[in-house]
């Protein structure tokens, strides 16, 4: 019996080992190595293999320009995002600003609204014919109508789009400050700003440093904003080259590979610095009894007024696109075209329904454009994009969580051999998303990959599976970091207790450990789902008509809108689609953070409240004296 149990355990370990090796070598290492080698195997005009051809091309040509532009964007973003992000957190968590709750809600909109939908939202407002630009031009006719374009527009958009991490992580760091340290400094004669710079800020520096590195990488790998607004950055160029043909230009694929590898090298250097810094150790609170931070009133009235104005201007920048897009999603195409709210033009057509559009040609004949106006739930393309994104994101987010939970269970049981597994799951962090997707697109677009049983994963509907794998792989490092942290909260004695009461390892895991880590797992699922649901970069890299995601459809709406009498309300449907993304992301976040993360105490309280309400409504009988044991 014992031998059988041992054999079963060995078999499980073996299957697990094979699976993780397959995942690591097959879908992380080999495709990316293939990309790397493709740089050195290009053939020159004479048909000979020339390992230096692409590098020489790079050194001589305009490719450097893309790298420089991306670096410029990354460096600028580090400055702007840190300034805006840190001020958002200070305004809502550290300083006493009136209406902080409302401000926080506005600043957090980027959690449900981002990617290509955010960029198109900003274009809707700030473009040369955008609502805000038109409004400003009315009062300042001499201003530059095209102020929102190129580098400035990308920087502006990304600055406000990339503060989510500050709102999540820096907020936690500031909330962890022991207020006694602030009081102690004040007691020793330090002024308000000395306390901030000498006591508070140093405790935030480690988090700020991590955020800086993450922002730098985001800037370097930017895709949505540069491609929608129009800016020569690396990623859009990689995607362009990946889809190009040798008939048009010199070895485009190898050049795409080289740009991807350059991105990877930057990422590796940055992550090494981050890792080194993190190992040096973070600030640790030595407080025996922590006191909750009390918000600081800004004593200087002038500074106080300036801070309030600054806070509400930021609030407007964050919330105006959301509000206006919400409103315009209920306006007809005429009002949207004019970028002016028309109180007589309310409609639900951008969401549901379809009708034809009749128009008169210059020769006077009336023509009909069939289904020129349709809502997102009635437009097959939009609906299909939404469905595809929903399916891909759900599968990938869930698969990522399952893989990481299983891996963490192993890592915590086998500390030594677990290290290899941990590093293999963190590996995608070293590679820019675009490199992984590009590598997949090239490597799996073949019938000769033996470990996919000769199946071309890029061909036809197979690409959906390839995208699920890519989505999953890209999200593994984040999932691992978050879920692994939650495993640390499991008291070892719980496992011993369950074992002592006769529970086997599977039951102990499912009934004791999993419920403890479940809030973190759900949070990771939600954050990953929300990001993937609206992601554009990866699907644009795959660029397959068999997997046109929601974000790609949204982006294409900007283009189709320009075509006369066809897809007339594309801009309206774009607004409705953005609202849809916000609703879906909001629901997911609510279900996970609001409901899923409740601990048993909160769940029991909620149950009690529900019961009381039902009793009040007379829908159930009054409860027996309290305490009937929980149902099994």
């Amino acid at each position: 019996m014992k031998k059988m149990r041992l054999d079963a355990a060995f078999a499980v370990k073996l299957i697990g080992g094979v699976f993780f090796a397959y995942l690591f070598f097959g879908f992380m290492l080999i495709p990316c190595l293939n990309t790397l080698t493709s740089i050195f195997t290009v053939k020159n005009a004479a048909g000979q293999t020339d390992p230096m051809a692409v590098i020489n091309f790079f050194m001589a040509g305009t490719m450097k320009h893309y790298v420089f532009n991306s670096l410029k964007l990354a460096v600028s973003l580090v400055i702007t995002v840190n300034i805006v992000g840190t001020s958002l957190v200070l305004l809502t968590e550290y300083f006493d600003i009136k209406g902080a709750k409302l401000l926080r809600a506005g600043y957090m909109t980027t959690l449900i609204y981002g990617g290509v939908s955010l960029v198109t939202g900003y274009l809707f407002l700030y473009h040369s014919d955008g609502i805000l630009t038109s409004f400003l031009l009315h009062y300042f006719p001499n201003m530059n109508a095209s102020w929102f374009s190129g580098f400035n527009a990308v920087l502006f958009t990304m600055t406000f789009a990339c503060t989510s991490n500050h709102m999540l992580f820096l907020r936690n760091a500031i909330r962890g400050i022991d207020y006694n340290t602030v009081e102690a400094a004040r007691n020793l004669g330090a002024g308000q700003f000395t306390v901030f710079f000498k006591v508070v800020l140093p405790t935030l520096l480690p988090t700020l440093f991590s955020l800086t590195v993450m922002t730098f990488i985001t800037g370097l790998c930017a895709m949505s904003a540069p491609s929608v607004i129009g800016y020569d950055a690396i990623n859009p160029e990689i995607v362009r080259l990946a889809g190009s043909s040798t008939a048009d230009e010199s070895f485009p694929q190898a050049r795409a590979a080289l740009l991807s590898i350059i991105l990877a090298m930057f990422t590796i250097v940055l992550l090494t610095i981050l890792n080194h810094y993190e190992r040096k150790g973070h600030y640790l609170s030595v407080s025996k009894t922590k006191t909750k931070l009390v918000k600081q009133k800004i004593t200087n009235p002038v500074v106080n007024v300036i801070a309030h104005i600054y806070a509400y201007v930021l609030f407007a920048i964050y919330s105006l696109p959301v509000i206006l897009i919400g409103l315009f999603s209920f306006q007809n195409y005429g009002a949207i075209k004019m970028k002016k709210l028309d109180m007589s033009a309310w409609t639900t057509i951008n969401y549901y329904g379809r009708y034809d559009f009749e128009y008169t040609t210059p020769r006077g004949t009336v023509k009909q454009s069939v289904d020129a106006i349709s809502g997102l739930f009635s437009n097959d393309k939009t609906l299909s994009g939404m469905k595809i994104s929903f399916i891909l994101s759900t599968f990938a987010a869930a698969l990522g969580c399952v893989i990481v939970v299983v891996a963490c269970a192993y890592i915590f049981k086998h500390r030594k051999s677990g290290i290899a597994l941990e590093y293999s799951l963190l590996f995608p962090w070293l590679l820019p998303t675009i490199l992984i997707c590009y590598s997949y697109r090239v490597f799996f677009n073949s019938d000769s990959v033996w470990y996919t049983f000769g199946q071309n994963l890029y061909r036809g509907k197979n690409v959906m599976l390839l995208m699920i794998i890519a989505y999953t792989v890209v999200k593994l490092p984040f999932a691992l970091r978050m879920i692994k942290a939650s495993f640390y909260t499991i008291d070892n004695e719980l496992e011993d207790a369950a074992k002592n009461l006769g529970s086997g390892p599977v039951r102990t895991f499912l009934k004791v450990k999993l419920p403890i880590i479940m809030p973190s797992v759900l949070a990771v699922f939600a954050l990953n789902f929300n990001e993937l649901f609206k992601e554009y970069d990866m699907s644009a890299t795959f660029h397959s008509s068999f997997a046109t995601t929601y974000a790609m459809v949204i982006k294409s709406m900007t283009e189709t809108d320009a075509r006369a009498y066809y897809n007339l309300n594309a801009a309206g449907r774009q607004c409705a689609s953005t609202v849809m993304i916000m609703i879906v992301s909001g629901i997911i976040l609510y279900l996970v953070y609001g409901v899923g993360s409740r601990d048993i105490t909160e769940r029991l309280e909620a149950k009690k409240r529900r019961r009381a309400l039902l009793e009040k409504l007379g829908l159930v009988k009054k409860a027996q004296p309290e305490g009937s044991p929980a149902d099994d």
Partner: protein
Amino acid sequence: MIRLNDIGVTFGDFKALEHINVHVKEGEFYTFLGPSGCGKTTTLRTITGFIKPSEGKVFMKDRDITDVPIEKRNIGIVFQSYALFPTMTVYDNIAFGLKIQKLSKAEIKKRVARIAQKVELSDEQLAKAVAQLSGGQQQRVAIARALVTNPSVICLDEPLSNLDAKLRVQLRNELKAMQKEFGITTIYVTHDQEEALTLSDTISVFNKGVIEQTGSPNEIYNHSRTEFVCNFIGDINRLSDGIVSRMNASGAGLSPENHHYIRLERIHVNDASKGGVTLSGTVESMEYYGLYIKYTISCEGQSLKVIEKNDGERPYEKGETVSLSFSPDDLMIYGPDGREAQR
């Protein structure tokens, strides 16, 4: 009931336990006492099955259980942290083991209700989450969970260590009463000598992976067999060479090679009738505890600690000259090897 025969446990090169021999009788309250890292929890985990001994055998009711898996040993455990499942209600925590035994719902309900009544947990508390209970109530849940499966033995691993002093004393008494009521064989691990002395029928004192002494609380306290035990249990004075010389001058016949100890309460202040040796000293300091007063008295160049019952008389003041008397029979004497020496 439980017998450990020459148990040894090794972790790599480190010998955690050596030649551990324990015999726990049916219904007995048996305590493993010792400082941190002495091996007491390792011994307990060997009994419960979490650690497989490198040497020796574990017997339960004369049956060799050394290789029996944890869940088949029928031993209940109360962990130091209580290890209550935080995502379950109190009821579900207690019922966990019964569900694994696949008992019917009605039977589970009945048994949980019965044990809850015994450990004084109300129906209302059963429906709560464990985090909603106080430390004392959580301890009762842990005990109920360990007892509901009717184990032959219950093991408690420092269950009071996370509680404040007042609650610790209160629960200590409740624990003892509960053990008497259930009549269950109990093995208790603690580093708190007061807890061990008040609760136990038998105590084994551990040090560096070996048992220094096993005996009743009285034997351990008054007849400590090793210098370590005498130092670890209670407060004690080691007499300086000066005092030993003075005693020898009055014919005590003590070997200067040995180490001589005397407990605080065996020295009497200004009461020559209580002892055969009387020395003169000066009060250095006084600590007032209410029930008793603890003095530090300088005598023959040594600071001796003395406890006097608070009988309402005026306490001695700092600088006051007093006489110290004690009987040579109350001395605890150990050889240079730390073992009890012949008088």
